[in-house]
């Protein structure tokens, strides 16, 4: 009777169950996927998405939204495939500057109380523009070490799974366990009272943005490690994917309610949903629509479990 799970755990339970259900369906449709290689093929492209989702989640934790995530990851991918490969030092400097630019964005948004949606919308043009300048046509080459990292074959568990768990763990430690994470989520929950406790909300927001930038940089590098080369539009989809991932993972747009583990699960779910569809062999006309349908189904599942959980709690 007194089995009252902490709301944080419940928030995780739902996305985890959806992922499991989807995975079961995929295995049933395509038993070949149930292997080391199979799992890696299913999930390796989820790794950069998971990183981008964590980045988006950090921005959402401070009640902002980043519409430039995809453009920024594309830009990072272009830098990684050019400068980071040819002149690593310069490449790292550029990436550091990009992270600093993200932090600066947080500062501007806070100081002038700007709507983050608009600023990041503008930034998405800027990042795409820079990427087009770097790589007018697709090309470049991934740094050896990034390639190695993404294609490594650890024993027993495929790299994609290891990386996902690692990302979730690091995200959890930073966002849920550390003081900095508490501060960032506090800003999302009640900015005014955080300020009244004597914290610099400006610094917290800048920190959240900077950290998001760092995760997004990691996403770009991971992506290039997988694709071996880059183009200016390579990750434009990540903007919506990352938002959807956070939501699927139980996060919310406002109020600082986020979950890094959930976000990673959300990213994996989205990736898996795509595979599930292609295993279903739907007519090409409706393949795009089916992606919408699967999004709806997964969220409906979330609603259902939410309802059950609420009924449980009311008892």
């Amino acid at each position: 009777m007194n089995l009252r799970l902490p709301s944080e755990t419940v928030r995780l339970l739902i996305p985890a169950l959806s992922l499991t259900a989807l995975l079961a369906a995929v295995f049933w449709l395509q038993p070949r996927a149930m292997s080391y290689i199979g799992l890696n093929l299913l999930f390796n492209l989820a790794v950069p998405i998971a990183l981008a989702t964590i980045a988006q989640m950090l921005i959402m934790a401070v009640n902002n939204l980043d519409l430039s995530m995809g453009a920024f990851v594309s830009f990072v991918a272009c830098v990684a495939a050019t400068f980071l490969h040819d002149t690593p030092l310069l490449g790292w400097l550029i990436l550091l500057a990009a992270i600093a630019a993200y932090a600066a964005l947080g500062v501007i948004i806070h100081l002038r109380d700007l709507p983050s949606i608009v600023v990041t919308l503008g930034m998405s043009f800027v990042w795409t523009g820079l990427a087009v300048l770097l790589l007018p046509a697709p090309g470049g080459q991934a740094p050896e070490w990034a390639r190695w990292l993404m294609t490594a074959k650890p024993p027993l568990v495929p790299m994609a799974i290891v990386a996902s768990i690692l990302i979730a763990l690091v995200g959890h430690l930073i966002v849920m366990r550390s003081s900095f994470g508490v501060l960032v989520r506090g800003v999302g929950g009640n900015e005014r009272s955080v300020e009244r406790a004597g914290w610099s909300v400006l610094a917290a927001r800048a920190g959240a943005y900077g950290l998001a930038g760092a995760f997004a940089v990691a996403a770009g590098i991971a992506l290039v490690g997988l694709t071996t080369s880059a183009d200016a539009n390579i990750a434009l989809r990540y903007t919506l994917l990352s938002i959807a991932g956070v939501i699927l993972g139980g996060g919310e747009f406002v109020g600082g309610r986020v979950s890094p583990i959930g976000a990673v699960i959300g990213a994996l779910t989205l990736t898996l949903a795509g595979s599930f569809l292609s295993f279903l062999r739907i007519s090409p006309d409706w393949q795009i629509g089916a992606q919408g349908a699967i999004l709806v189904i997964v969220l409906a599942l979330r609603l259902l479990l939410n309802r059950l959980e609420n009924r449980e709690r009311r008892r």
Partner: protein
Amino acid sequence: MKAVHLLAAKPWIWSWLAAAVVWTATVAVTGGAGAFGLTQAALTFAAFSVIVGTGQMFVITLGPGNIDLSVPATMTLAGTVALKLMNVDNGMIAPGLVVALAIGIAVGVGNYGLIKLLRIPPIIATLAMSFIVQSAAIWTNRGLRIKPPSLLAEFTTSSTFAIPNMAIVALLVAVIAWVLLEKSLYGRWILAIGQSMAAARMAGIPVDGTRFATYVLCAVLAALCGYLLACFSGGAALNMGAEYLLMSIAVVVIGGTSVAGGDSNVPGIWGASLFLFLVVSMLNTYGLGAGFRLIMTGLIIIGVIVVASGRRARQP
């Protein structure tokens, strides 16, 4: 001090100012020669952004998280189906319009249905919906480009008293939107909901009905825009709405509507639409490459928003 106050009270002023500056900078290149042509072109093309932007504005007014990402797909579906139905026959213009608007209504109903029944954030619900609608557009005519009826093509591309017909239609839409927002009961309701849904509910406002009507309105305006755009550009294409996704959001926010909801304004949409068209024209005119053009577009958007909004007086 007083002037600053006046300006701050009217956030749309900035988008108009920016549009004027860019217009001047573009016209300056040719020594004033292209002024008329540029103005005409700007009015024509801004009209489409105004129509979709107005719908998006109503949705964004509903408060944080409210956004309609199905706008491009709705435009495409309405355009393709209407043109297929009309099949170059002038007698079918009215039925075509009715069908386009009906598609808008259907998409709006679907959008709010998903939001309400599944309780999912609008951004995800409308994204899912847009995939389905886009598939429907592909399925209905497989991307064939059917010409519009000649009367309609003529109407959409010509001018009355030197003002493009499209601009007149958009102006009409804007005036109706302004009356709705500023003077009507419905306008009060969406502004209230945008500030606090809970408070609106407690004040006896029919929250679901209002939100539902708003999502339908947005989709209907998108459908109308798709219908007109398809006729204007000589046929519907499957990717014709694509650029109106970011555009519809950008004109709303650059136009001074608060993305936090509950605070909107219609004139700003016109200013922002003109501005966004003129920026691209200006940068094209100055012969900048795509990269620079994108960067400049982005920086100008940020610049406008930085100038336009100061930090509100904070509560202690």
